[in-house]
């Protein structure tokens, strides 16, 4: 084969002089590289779904102000302090009356911010309510919450010359929390603080209710409190449909559908009725600051 000829035997075409060929080649090269560099490399790690809001907490028929945790499923682990794009209402399923809820940003521990919505509407024991959250795009999550019936005040018996008290919660079908709320000063530093100690795991069925025995002041000492100035007792009963949280581990509980009663969302919103009582030997706070700390559960 003639080295001057191409494989086809034709004389190669002359594109131009060598410098021109170089610059044509260079421009083609740059165009190719530029087009490759500009290829789409965006990645969106979010999978759109029909779950819009995370809702957590309880509606308590016995308190005058309700708080519910509300979180639009967000794009980062850090909390968001911007205004909540959500309109929150509850509807009494018996009467059809609706109530508006309001947004609040709370500073919480560990350090961060969360949205809790609140309402001062009265919620009636034994009734059911629908909790609706809707954003401006029309996406909506909702839950139906059944509040339990009311139950009698709890009683505390402390025999003479004994430090062990017996707490009885009567006429309760599903006791979901029983705790002592302590207000006292920390052993180290002496700061006035609140400490909650749950007794729910020690509570045992008793007749139509529950009972538990406790040495409150010993417990306070174990919690590092000195100068206990007020002790209160909280009992909380749940309405129907309350999951058996005692037998669900944290990993399972964190799964989106395990405990959730939220439509188009995640989380759990429960209905409860609570009773808050004073410890017999500590009916009023000896330290004024404790009133604010233990005023409500």
């Amino acid at each position: 084969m003639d080295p001057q000829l191409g494989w086809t035997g034709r004389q190669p075409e002359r594109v131009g002089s060598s410098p021109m060929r170089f610059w044509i080649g260079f421009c083609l090269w740059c165009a190719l590289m530029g087009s490759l560099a500009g290829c789409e490399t965006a990645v969106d790690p979010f999978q759109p779904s029909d779950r819009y809001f995370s809702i957590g907490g309880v509606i308590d028929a016995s308190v005058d102000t309700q708080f519910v945790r509300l979180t639009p499923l967000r794009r980062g682990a850090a909390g968001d302090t911007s205004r909540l794009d959500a309109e929150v209402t509850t509807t009494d399923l018996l009467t059809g009356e609706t109530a508006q809820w309001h947004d609040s940003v709370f500073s919480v521990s560990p350090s961060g911010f969360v949205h809790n919505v609140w309402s001062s509407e009265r919620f009636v024991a034994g009734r059911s309510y629908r909790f609706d959250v809707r954003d401006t795009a029309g996406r909506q999550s909702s839950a139906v919450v059944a509040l339990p019936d009311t139950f009698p005040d709890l009683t505390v018996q402390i025999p003479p010359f004994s430090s062990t008290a017996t707490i009885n919660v009567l006429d309760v079908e599903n006791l979901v929390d029983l705790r002592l709320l302590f207000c006292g000063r920390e052993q180290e530093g002496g700061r006035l603080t609140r400490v909650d100690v749950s007794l729910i795991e020690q509570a045992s069925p008793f007749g139509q209710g529950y009972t538990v025995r406790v040495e409150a002041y010993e417990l306070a000492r174990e919690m590092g409190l000195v100068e206990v100035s007020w002790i209160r007792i909280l009992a909380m009963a749940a309405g129907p449909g309350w999951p058996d949280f005692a037998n669900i581990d944290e990993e399972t509980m964190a799964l989106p559908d395990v405990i959730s009663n939220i439509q188009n969302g995640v989380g759990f919103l429960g209905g409860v009725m609570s009773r808050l009582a004073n410890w017999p030997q500590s009916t009023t706070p000896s330290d004024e600051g404790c009133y604010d700390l233990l005023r409500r559960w």
Partner: protein
Amino acid sequence: MICSQTGLRRGVVGLVVIWMVFEASSISAQPVTIRGFVTDLSNGQILPGANVTLDDHENGLTGAVTDGDGFYQISGIEPGEYLLRISFVGYEPHEDSLDLGAERFVTRSVALRPGDAALGEVVVESDRGAARREAGLQTIEPTDLARIPTPDVSGDLAAYLQSLPGIVSLGDRGGRLYVRGGTPAQNLVLVDGNLIYQPFHIVGFFSAFPQDLVSTVDVLAGGFGARYSGRISSVIDVTTRSGNTSAYQASASLSPFLTGVRVEGPLRRGRSSFLASYRSSFIDEVAPVITGREIPVDFGDVFLKLYRTDGVNDRCSSTMMRTRDRGQIDTDGEDEPEYFRWTNLVIGGRCLVLPAESRFLFEGNAGISYVGNEVGTRSDPDRSSYALQLQSDVNFTYRRTRSELRWGIFTRANWTGYELGGQFQDLDIDSDVLIGAGGYVDVELRRRRFRVNPGVVLTAYPFFFSPSIEPRLRFSWEPNLLRGGSFSGAAGIYDQTLAGISDERDAGSLFMAWMPVPIGGRKSRAVHTLFGWQQPLAEWLSISVEGYQKSIRNLAVPLWSTIARFTTALQLADGRSYGYDGRLEMERGPLYLFAGYGYSVTRYQAVQDNFGVWYGEPVQTYHPPHDVRHQLTLVAGYQANRFSVNVQWQFGSGLPYTRALGFDELVRMRPLMDYRRFRGTTRILFERPYRGRMPAYHRLDISLDRQFTSRTADVTLQIGVINSYDRANIFYVDIFTLRRVDQLPLVPFAGIKIEIH
């Protein structure tokens, strides 16, 4: 146990009987064996792949090719007069008239003189080149490494391996290679016969094996024979070269990523030598200047090899290699990035002995291998792990005309320890000792165009695991369909008792904890099958294609949880990888071209109660993060007038990752959390694992070298660019922050290397 031992005994006896029967049919009267080593006269280096032929002037030729140790053997030779010819490209051929018959074993070790003579007219084919493969085996030579542009004036095994279809790296940092679906901890990497745990540096272009130190590398992407055990995916068997036994040499190189010095020379001229190398990175210093961003990594290695030979029958070496890697991958996050450290240390010795009156070639290895791993903040690592292995093995090779019997025994003592800071919920702090021993038998039978290689490995770890019996089979067949083409295949069972656990959920985590298999004492077990065809289309053009499947059981993988935390539990999964790759290689004159395409699928299947609750079915099938469906590599090189230009373009389809539905806080309900005061557990709601795919990856790297030579020194200047069109290739998505982390941007580089001889 009794059944296992009986089975093994039957297996071994069976293999030996097959071999004896096979050989009995070919025994001739007083056959003679000629063997020896072939080396380079100028520096004492072994010459793998040299052609050795015997011509009796009547019946034609018989021949052999030197192996990775430069050893050849031709057996079953009828007594008589022969012409021995040994040749190799770039060397003057050696010819010698022999009168064979007086001795049964004749040793002829030959040193070839470098020269311009090309290979003679008779070629005993050797299997070199990227497209020359036999049942998963590819032999790599130092010149192959130089074809891949790297930001150093020297090729490197890490960069070369990543150019091969079937070998996947998650990004250009991290030092982790996945071979045909296997994980890094399932690769057996050997340096002069001794294990090295994590030889690939934190910057993915580099390993502890630069071109200057490598003699040959056997890469077995699967289906490896009975000689290798302890890992279930692949073997990368590196033989380093020995120092110059004739003259002193030194070199120094400088480039933005790496600087290094190497010295070598005779300790006793012609008999012993040393080779020492030291390399250290300083990319962390210059990266802000040349890339405009921080690359806060530091890595390097030290290598020392002492070598001794009697010139005829034996050669021994001792090797010391130490590597260090440390640095951060994700530097753009708000939190302090994790700081990784790992260190390898290998000290070993190896002897090849050819007893004067024996047909056996004896090889002995002994060594110690260590790896230490840490991660945490720069000043306070919160997780650490180490693994230490003492190993020794003796191997015998008995070669006959049409067969070869190889057998050996080995011992391994492993010490592992880890302190995981709660990363894995079922593992925290522990240390273990695992002592085991084993042996193997491997028979190679050759009949005209067919070669079959059955083998079996027995490994026993008393008190820990039941014995492993791992049958293996390799074969090749050269039918007359197409001239020079060969069909090959392999199959085998592979067990692994030592696991390297890493959090696969997080592709940016380089930490690996070594331990005996962590769940239920169940060893990981793989079954390999592969078949391939290779075809030389011309002397300068060859093509090959190979299909494979690996099934792996009992992989320890992280449990998926919706709670956004580093802590995870482990569970067992089964995996399956399959695919094929094709390669086309052309080398003609100054031009080199290579095209490789790989298609692969890797799928894990895990049973997890959480999945059942989460998605309605407890069995989940997913593609792990190293599942690359398509890979394409194009390499071109051209050498002229002391210039050489190398170009590589790589393409990889997107890697799997797990998408999120969103973050929230989980409000604890029992006892009811006061959610006005406390935040709750931050939770990330994941879509099913690894359902997302990242964008495709591609990159063009270019290097241009110019060499200047003088009587006393060679100087090589290099310029080049990595990621020449500055594509924003994604490295990974951080599953806890859902932020993307990119690979290196456009990195221009220049380097210089001075070699004094």
